[in-house]
Protein backbone atom coordinates (compact mmCIF):
# COMPACT_ATOMS: atom_id res chain seq x y z
CA UNK A 1 0.00 0.00 0.00
CA UNK A 2 2.82 2.34 1.02
CA UNK A 3 4.65 1.40 -2.15
CA UNK A 4 1.62 2.27 -4.29
CA UNK A 5 1.21 5.63 -2.47
CA UNK A 6 4.89 6.50 -2.97
CA UNK A 7 4.69 5.48 -6.62
CA UNK A 8 1.58 7.61 -7.16
CA UNK A 9 3.02 10.69 -5.45
CA UNK A 10 6.55 10.14 -6.70
CA UNK A 11 5.94 10.95 -10.34
CA UNK A 12 4.34 14.38 -9.80
CA UNK A 13 6.89 15.20 -7.08
CA UNK A 14 9.73 14.31 -9.43
CA UNK A 15 8.16 16.42 -12.16
CA UNK A 16 7.98 19.39 -9.80
CA UNK A 17 11.45 19.08 -8.33
CA UNK A 18 13.60 17.72 -11.19
CA UNK A 19 16.37 20.00 -12.40
CA UNK A 20 15.74 21.77 -15.71
CA UNK A 21 17.41 19.89 -18.55
CA UNK A 22 17.91 23.06 -20.56
CA UNK A 23 18.23 26.63 -19.52
CA UNK A 24 15.00 28.53 -19.90
CA UNK A 25 14.85 30.36 -23.22
CA UNK A 26 15.73 34.01 -23.07
CA UNK A 27 12.69 36.18 -22.71
CA UNK A 28 11.82 37.70 -26.07
CA UNK A 29 11.78 41.40 -26.36
CA UNK A 30 8.07 41.94 -26.52
CA UNK A 31 6.68 44.44 -28.96
CA UNK A 32 3.95 46.71 -27.71
CA UNK A 33 0.69 44.92 -28.47
CA UNK A 34 -1.47 46.29 -31.20
CA UNK A 35 -5.06 45.17 -31.24
CA UNK A 36 -7.42 45.35 -34.14
CA UNK A 37 -9.38 48.57 -34.17
CA UNK A 38 -12.32 49.70 -36.25
CA UNK A 39 -11.56 52.22 -38.94
CA UNK A 40 -13.86 53.66 -41.56
CA UNK A 41 -12.87 53.96 -45.23
CA UNK A 42 -14.70 56.22 -47.67
CA UNK A 43 -13.57 56.12 -51.31
CA UNK A 44 -14.63 58.37 -54.16
CA UNK A 45 -13.49 58.04 -57.78
CA UNK A 46 -13.44 60.44 -60.71
CA UNK A 47 -13.92 57.39 -62.97
CA UNK A 48 -15.37 54.10 -61.70
CA UNK A 49 -12.59 51.47 -61.71
CA UNK A 50 -12.99 47.88 -62.94
CA UNK A 51 -11.74 46.59 -59.60
CA UNK A 52 -10.15 47.60 -56.34
CA UNK A 53 -8.11 45.68 -53.74
CA UNK A 54 -6.89 47.14 -50.46
CA UNK A 55 -4.24 45.28 -48.46
CA UNK A 56 -2.75 45.87 -45.04
CA UNK A 57 0.48 44.09 -44.05
CA UNK A 58 0.13 42.07 -47.27
CA UNK A 59 -3.29 40.74 -46.20
CA UNK A 60 -6.44 41.60 -48.13
CA UNK A 61 -8.87 43.82 -46.21
CA UNK A 62 -11.27 44.85 -48.97
CA UNK A 63 -11.83 43.64 -52.52
CA UNK A 64 -14.50 45.06 -54.82
CA UNK A 65 -15.27 44.30 -58.45
CA UNK A 66 -16.90 47.04 -60.53
CA UNK A 67 -17.40 49.42 -57.60
CA UNK A 68 -19.55 52.53 -57.65
CA UNK A 69 -17.83 55.93 -57.75
CA UNK A 70 -18.65 56.42 -54.07
CA UNK A 71 -18.34 53.63 -51.53
CA UNK A 72 -17.53 53.12 -47.87
CA UNK A 73 -16.82 50.34 -45.42
CA UNK A 74 -15.84 49.67 -41.81
CA UNK A 75 -12.78 47.43 -41.46
CA UNK A 76 -10.71 46.18 -38.51
CA UNK A 77 -6.97 46.74 -38.56
CA UNK A 78 -4.00 46.75 -36.23
CA UNK A 79 -3.72 50.51 -35.91
CA UNK A 80 -0.67 51.55 -33.88
CA UNK A 81 -0.06 55.14 -32.87
CA UNK A 82 2.57 55.36 -35.63
CA UNK A 83 -0.13 54.85 -38.29
CA UNK A 84 -0.63 52.35 -41.11
CA UNK A 85 0.44 51.74 -44.71
CA UNK A 86 -2.39 50.62 -46.98
CA UNK A 87 -1.59 49.03 -50.36
CA UNK A 88 -4.07 49.98 -53.09
CA UNK A 89 -4.45 48.07 -56.35
CA UNK A 90 -6.84 49.92 -58.63
CA UNK A 91 -7.70 48.90 -62.18
CA UNK A 92 -9.20 51.68 -64.25
CA UNK A 93 -10.44 50.98 -67.81
CA UNK A 94 -7.59 50.76 -70.32
CA UNK A 95 -7.17 53.81 -72.53
CA UNK A 96 -9.23 55.98 -70.20
CA UNK A 97 -8.26 59.45 -69.02
CA UNK A 98 -6.14 60.17 -65.94
CA UNK A 99 -8.28 59.13 -63.00
CA UNK A 100 -8.17 59.78 -59.29
CA UNK A 101 -9.32 58.08 -56.13
CA UNK A 102 -9.85 60.00 -52.90
CA UNK A 103 -9.44 57.97 -49.73
CA UNK A 104 -10.89 59.25 -46.48
CA UNK A 105 -9.82 57.19 -43.48
CA UNK A 106 -11.41 57.78 -40.10
CA UNK A 107 -9.02 56.43 -37.47
CA UNK A 108 -9.96 54.80 -34.14
CA UNK A 109 -9.75 58.20 -32.42
CA UNK A 110 -12.38 59.57 -34.81
CA UNK A 111 -9.99 61.78 -36.79
CA UNK A 112 -10.42 61.74 -40.57
CA UNK A 113 -7.41 61.84 -42.91
CA UNK A 114 -7.65 62.06 -46.67
CA UNK A 115 -5.20 61.12 -49.38
CA UNK A 116 -5.43 60.79 -53.16
CA UNK A 117 -4.17 58.27 -55.69
CA UNK A 118 -3.85 59.28 -59.34
CA UNK A 119 -3.23 57.12 -62.36
CA UNK A 120 -4.23 55.46 -65.61
CA UNK A 121 -4.94 51.77 -66.17
CA UNK A 122 -3.52 49.58 -63.41
CA UNK A 123 -2.18 51.47 -60.41
CA UNK A 124 -0.37 50.01 -57.39
CA UNK A 125 0.33 52.48 -54.64
CA UNK A 126 1.12 52.42 -50.95
CA UNK A 127 -0.60 55.17 -48.98
CA UNK A 128 0.45 56.06 -45.46
CA UNK A 129 -2.02 57.24 -42.82
CA UNK A 130 -2.10 59.62 -41.02
Amino acid at each position, binding site marked *: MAFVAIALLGWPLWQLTRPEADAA*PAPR*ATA*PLTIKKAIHLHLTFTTAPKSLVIKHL*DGEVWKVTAPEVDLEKDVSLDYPAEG*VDLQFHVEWPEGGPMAAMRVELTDPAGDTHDKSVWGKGIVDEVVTFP
Partner: protein
Amino acid sequence: MHFVKTSLLSLIAFLAVVMAAQAADKIRVSSFSTILTEIAQQVGGDRVEVTGHVKPGVDPHEFEPKPTDLKTVGDAQLILLSAKHMEGYVGKLKEATGTKGALVEVGDGFATLKMKSEKDPDKVIDDPHWWHSVANMEKAVKIVRDELIKISPADKPAFTDNAAKYLSTLDGLEKWVKNELAKLPRDKRKLVTSHDAFQYFARENGFTIYAIEGISSEDQPSSKKVGEIVAAIKTQGVKAIFPESIENPKVMTEITRETGVKIAPELYADGLGDEKSDAATYVQMYKHNVTAIVEALK
Protein backbone atom coordinates in the same frame (compact mmCIF):
# COMPACT_ATOMS: atom_id res chain seq x y z
CA MET B 1 42.51 72.99 -110.19
CA HIS B 2 44.68 70.23 -108.84
CA PHE B 3 45.76 72.55 -106.01
CA VAL B 4 42.13 73.32 -105.06
CA LYS B 5 41.23 69.62 -105.11
CA THR B 6 44.20 68.73 -102.88
CA SER B 7 43.44 71.55 -100.48
CA LEU B 8 39.79 70.52 -100.18
CA LEU B 9 40.70 66.90 -99.55
CA SER B 10 43.27 67.94 -96.94
CA LEU B 11 40.72 70.13 -95.21
CA ILE B 12 38.14 67.33 -95.13
CA ALA B 13 40.75 64.89 -93.77
CA PHE B 14 41.82 67.41 -91.13
CA LEU B 15 38.21 67.99 -90.00
CA ALA B 16 37.61 64.25 -89.86
CA VAL B 17 40.68 63.77 -87.66
CA VAL B 18 39.62 66.62 -85.35
CA MET B 19 36.08 65.25 -85.06
CA ALA B 20 37.36 61.73 -84.39
CA ALA B 21 39.74 63.05 -81.73
CA GLN B 22 36.90 64.95 -80.08
CA ALA B 23 34.72 61.86 -80.09
CA ALA B 24 37.48 59.81 -78.51
CA ASP B 25 38.21 62.50 -75.95
CA LYS B 26 36.02 61.38 -73.09
CA ILE B 27 35.17 63.57 -70.13
CA ARG B 28 37.47 62.63 -67.27
CA VAL B 29 35.57 62.23 -64.01
CA SER B 30 37.09 61.54 -60.58
CA SER B 31 34.70 60.22 -57.96
CA PHE B 32 35.26 59.80 -54.23
CA SER B 33 32.14 57.75 -53.55
CA THR B 34 31.04 54.41 -54.96
CA ILE B 35 27.53 55.84 -55.23
CA LEU B 36 28.67 58.85 -57.27
CA THR B 37 30.84 56.61 -59.43
CA GLU B 38 27.71 54.68 -60.41
CA ILE B 39 25.76 57.89 -61.09
CA ALA B 40 28.55 59.30 -63.29
CA GLN B 41 28.79 56.05 -65.26
CA GLN B 42 25.03 55.77 -65.71
CA VAL B 43 24.50 59.40 -66.74
CA GLY B 44 27.72 59.86 -68.67
CA GLY B 45 27.55 56.53 -70.48
CA ASP B 46 30.27 56.12 -73.11
CA ARG B 47 31.06 59.84 -73.09
CA VAL B 48 32.82 59.70 -69.72
CA GLU B 49 35.80 57.95 -68.24
CA VAL B 50 35.16 57.62 -64.52
CA THR B 51 37.88 56.90 -61.97
CA GLY B 52 36.42 55.66 -58.70
CA HIS B 53 39.04 56.50 -56.10
CA VAL B 54 37.08 54.91 -53.25
CA LYS B 55 36.64 51.31 -54.31
CA PRO B 56 33.58 49.21 -53.45
CA GLY B 57 33.84 47.70 -49.99
CA VAL B 58 36.31 50.37 -48.81
CA ASP B 59 35.26 52.44 -45.79
CA PRO B 60 35.03 56.03 -47.08
CA HIS B 61 35.40 57.34 -43.51
CA GLU B 62 38.94 55.92 -43.43
CA PHE B 63 39.95 56.66 -47.03
CA GLU B 64 42.92 58.95 -47.72
CA PRO B 65 43.97 59.78 -51.31
CA LYS B 66 47.35 58.50 -52.51
CA PRO B 67 49.74 60.37 -54.84
CA THR B 68 48.36 58.45 -57.84
CA ASP B 69 44.86 59.64 -56.92
CA LEU B 70 46.08 63.24 -56.79
CA LYS B 71 47.55 62.98 -60.27
CA THR B 72 44.28 61.64 -61.70
CA VAL B 73 42.29 64.35 -59.92
CA GLY B 74 44.64 66.99 -61.32
CA ASP B 75 43.71 65.88 -64.85
CA ALA B 76 39.99 65.43 -64.18
CA GLN B 77 37.36 67.73 -65.65
CA LEU B 78 34.80 66.84 -63.00
CA ILE B 79 35.50 65.81 -59.39
CA LEU B 80 32.58 64.37 -57.44
CA LEU B 81 32.51 64.33 -53.65
CA SER B 82 29.81 63.09 -51.24
CA ALA B 83 30.40 66.16 -49.05
CA LYS B 84 28.80 66.82 -45.64
CA HIS B 85 32.33 66.36 -44.23
CA MET B 86 32.70 62.78 -45.52
CA GLU B 87 35.92 63.74 -47.28
CA GLY B 88 38.00 65.41 -44.59
CA TYR B 89 40.82 65.69 -47.13
CA VAL B 90 38.95 67.96 -49.54
CA GLY B 91 40.99 71.06 -48.65
CA LYS B 92 44.29 69.22 -49.20
CA LEU B 93 42.89 67.74 -52.42
CA LYS B 94 42.20 71.19 -53.86
CA GLU B 95 45.57 72.50 -52.73
CA ALA B 96 47.67 69.54 -53.85
CA THR B 97 46.17 69.03 -57.28
CA GLY B 98 45.56 72.59 -58.40
CA THR B 99 42.84 71.07 -60.50
CA LYS B 100 41.04 73.18 -63.01
CA GLY B 101 38.16 70.72 -63.15
CA ALA B 102 34.80 71.42 -61.55
CA LEU B 103 34.81 70.19 -57.98
CA VAL B 104 31.23 69.34 -57.01
CA GLU B 105 30.28 68.58 -53.43
CA VAL B 106 27.06 66.80 -54.31
CA GLY B 107 25.70 66.23 -50.78
CA ASP B 108 25.76 69.93 -50.01
CA GLY B 109 22.70 70.26 -52.22
CA PHE B 110 20.48 68.37 -49.73
CA ALA B 111 19.00 69.12 -46.32
CA THR B 112 21.33 67.90 -43.59
CA LEU B 113 20.56 65.59 -40.71
CA LYS B 114 22.86 65.59 -37.69
CA MET B 115 24.64 62.69 -35.98
CA LYS B 116 27.05 62.06 -33.13
CA SER B 117 30.67 61.95 -34.19
CA GLU B 118 32.10 58.44 -33.86
CA LYS B 119 35.52 59.84 -33.04
CA ASP B 120 34.20 62.35 -30.51
CA PRO B 121 30.73 61.37 -29.19
CA ASP B 122 30.32 64.77 -27.54
CA LYS B 123 30.43 66.43 -30.93
CA VAL B 124 27.46 66.67 -33.31
CA ILE B 125 28.32 66.58 -37.02
CA ASP B 126 26.52 66.50 -40.37
CA ASP B 127 25.30 63.02 -41.29
CA PRO B 128 27.03 62.33 -44.63
CA HIS B 129 25.01 59.18 -45.55
CA TRP B 130 22.52 61.06 -47.74
CA TRP B 131 22.28 58.29 -50.40
CA HIS B 132 20.10 56.16 -48.08
CA SER B 133 17.28 58.45 -49.20
CA VAL B 134 16.19 57.55 -52.75
CA ALA B 135 14.84 61.11 -53.09
CA ASN B 136 18.35 62.46 -52.39
CA MET B 137 19.78 59.99 -54.88
CA GLU B 138 17.43 61.36 -57.55
CA LYS B 139 18.60 64.89 -56.78
CA ALA B 140 22.23 63.71 -57.04
CA VAL B 141 21.55 62.26 -60.52
CA LYS B 142 20.22 65.65 -61.66
CA ILE B 143 23.22 67.48 -60.19
CA VAL B 144 25.68 65.19 -62.01
CA ARG B 145 23.67 65.43 -65.25
CA ASP B 146 23.75 69.23 -65.16
CA GLU B 147 27.48 69.33 -64.40
CA LEU B 148 28.24 67.02 -67.33
CA ILE B 149 26.11 69.18 -69.63
CA LYS B 150 28.07 72.27 -68.52
CA ILE B 151 31.31 70.52 -69.52
CA SER B 152 29.99 69.18 -72.82
CA PRO B 153 26.83 70.99 -73.99
CA ALA B 154 26.94 69.03 -77.26
CA ASP B 155 26.22 65.84 -75.30
CA LYS B 156 23.15 67.27 -73.58
CA PRO B 157 20.67 64.95 -75.37
CA ALA B 158 22.65 61.83 -74.40
CA PHE B 159 23.15 62.90 -70.77
CA THR B 160 19.48 63.91 -70.46
CA ASP B 161 18.33 60.60 -71.90
CA ASN B 162 20.69 58.52 -69.74
CA ALA B 163 19.66 60.42 -66.61
CA ALA B 164 15.98 59.93 -67.42
CA LYS B 165 16.50 56.16 -67.75
CA TYR B 166 18.38 55.99 -64.45
CA LEU B 167 15.77 58.16 -62.71
CA SER B 168 13.10 55.80 -63.97
CA THR B 169 15.02 52.88 -62.41
CA LEU B 170 15.17 54.79 -59.12
CA ASP B 171 11.45 55.50 -59.36
CA GLY B 172 10.86 51.76 -59.71
CA LEU B 173 13.10 51.14 -56.70
CA GLU B 174 11.14 53.67 -54.64
CA LYS B 175 7.87 51.86 -55.42
CA TRP B 176 9.43 48.48 -54.59
CA VAL B 177 10.70 49.84 -51.26
CA LYS B 178 7.27 51.21 -50.32
CA ASN B 179 5.62 47.88 -51.14
CA GLU B 180 8.18 45.87 -49.18
CA LEU B 181 8.04 48.14 -46.15
CA ALA B 182 4.23 48.03 -46.22
CA LYS B 183 4.67 44.45 -44.94
CA LEU B 184 6.25 45.81 -41.77
CA PRO B 185 3.91 47.42 -39.20
CA ARG B 186 4.84 51.03 -38.48
CA ASP B 187 5.23 50.31 -34.76
CA LYS B 188 7.94 47.75 -35.58
CA ARG B 189 10.06 50.17 -37.59
CA LYS B 190 12.83 50.46 -35.02
CA LEU B 191 16.36 50.14 -36.24
CA VAL B 192 18.92 49.34 -33.57
CA THR B 193 22.31 49.72 -35.14
CA SER B 194 25.88 50.28 -34.08
CA HIS B 195 26.65 52.67 -36.93
CA ASP B 196 24.40 55.70 -37.09
CA ALA B 197 24.21 55.74 -40.88
CA PHE B 198 20.53 55.24 -41.62
CA GLN B 199 18.91 58.49 -40.54
CA TYR B 200 18.02 59.54 -44.09
CA PHE B 201 16.53 56.08 -44.68
CA ALA B 202 14.65 56.31 -41.38
CA ARG B 203 13.20 59.73 -42.06
CA GLU B 204 12.01 58.70 -45.52
CA ASN B 205 10.45 55.43 -44.38
CA GLY B 206 9.05 56.07 -40.91
CA PHE B 207 11.73 54.34 -38.84
CA THR B 208 13.16 55.31 -35.47
CA ILE B 209 16.89 54.79 -35.03
CA TYR B 210 18.44 53.56 -31.80
CA ALA B 211 22.18 53.82 -32.23
CA ILE B 212 23.98 51.74 -29.64
CA GLU B 213 27.57 52.56 -29.02
CA GLY B 214 29.99 50.02 -27.69
CA ILE B 215 28.92 46.99 -29.71
CA SER B 216 31.27 47.47 -32.61
CA SER B 217 34.14 49.04 -30.79
CA GLU B 218 36.91 47.15 -29.09
CA ASP B 219 36.35 49.18 -25.94
CA GLN B 220 34.44 47.30 -23.29
CA PRO B 221 31.29 49.28 -22.50
CA SER B 222 30.41 49.54 -18.79
CA SER B 223 27.87 47.14 -17.32
CA LYS B 224 25.66 50.20 -16.78
CA LYS B 225 25.82 50.97 -20.50
CA VAL B 226 24.99 47.36 -21.41
CA GLY B 227 22.09 47.49 -18.94
CA GLU B 228 20.78 50.61 -20.65
CA ILE B 229 21.01 48.95 -24.07
CA VAL B 230 19.17 45.86 -22.79
CA ALA B 231 16.45 48.00 -21.18
CA ALA B 232 16.00 50.03 -24.36
CA ILE B 233 15.68 46.90 -26.50
CA LYS B 234 13.11 45.38 -24.12
CA THR B 235 11.12 48.60 -23.77
CA GLN B 236 10.97 49.19 -27.49
CA GLY B 237 10.08 45.58 -28.29
CA VAL B 238 12.88 45.38 -30.82
CA LYS B 239 13.23 41.96 -32.52
CA ALA B 240 16.66 42.32 -34.11
CA ILE B 241 19.76 44.45 -34.00
CA PHE B 242 21.97 45.39 -36.92
CA PRO B 243 25.61 45.62 -35.87
CA GLU B 244 27.96 46.83 -38.58
CA SER B 245 30.61 44.43 -37.32
CA ILE B 246 30.93 42.39 -34.18
CA GLU B 247 34.21 43.25 -32.57
CA ASN B 248 32.88 42.82 -29.09
CA PRO B 249 31.27 39.34 -29.03
CA LYS B 250 31.05 39.16 -25.22
CA VAL B 251 28.84 42.23 -25.09
CA MET B 252 26.79 41.01 -28.02
CA THR B 253 26.25 37.61 -26.38
CA GLU B 254 25.13 39.28 -23.16
CA ILE B 255 22.67 41.51 -25.00
CA THR B 256 21.15 38.68 -27.03
CA ARG B 257 20.93 36.41 -23.93
CA GLU B 258 19.25 39.11 -21.86
CA THR B 259 16.79 40.26 -24.50
CA GLY B 260 16.33 37.36 -26.91
CA VAL B 261 16.92 39.65 -29.90
CA LYS B 262 18.51 38.16 -32.97
CA ILE B 263 21.51 39.46 -34.84
CA ALA B 264 20.35 40.58 -38.27
CA PRO B 265 22.44 40.41 -41.44
CA GLU B 266 24.92 43.20 -42.03
CA LEU B 267 23.59 46.28 -43.79
CA TYR B 268 25.53 48.22 -46.39
CA ALA B 269 25.97 51.58 -44.67
CA ASP B 270 28.87 53.32 -46.39
CA GLY B 271 28.50 52.54 -50.07
CA LEU B 272 28.35 49.72 -52.59
CA GLY B 273 29.75 46.24 -52.08
CA ASP B 274 32.27 44.67 -54.44
CA GLU B 275 31.16 43.17 -57.76
CA LYS B 276 30.80 39.67 -56.27
CA SER B 277 28.50 40.90 -53.50
CA ASP B 278 24.73 41.27 -53.64
CA ALA B 279 25.19 45.03 -53.40
CA ALA B 280 27.29 45.78 -56.46
CA THR B 281 24.82 48.40 -57.69
CA TYR B 282 22.77 51.02 -55.87
CA VAL B 283 19.50 49.20 -56.54
CA GLN B 284 20.98 45.90 -55.30
CA MET B 285 22.42 47.57 -52.20
CA TYR B 286 19.11 49.21 -51.33
CA LYS B 287 17.14 46.00 -51.91
CA HIS B 288 19.59 44.03 -49.75
CA ASN B 289 19.15 46.50 -46.88
CA VAL B 290 15.36 46.68 -47.11
CA THR B 291 14.96 42.92 -47.41
CA ALA B 292 17.24 42.32 -44.40
CA ILE B 293 15.33 44.89 -42.33
CA VAL B 294 11.87 43.60 -43.22
CA GLU B 295 12.82 39.95 -42.68
CA ALA B 296 14.45 40.66 -39.31
CA LEU B 297 11.78 42.94 -37.87
CA LYS B 298 8.42 41.63 -39.10
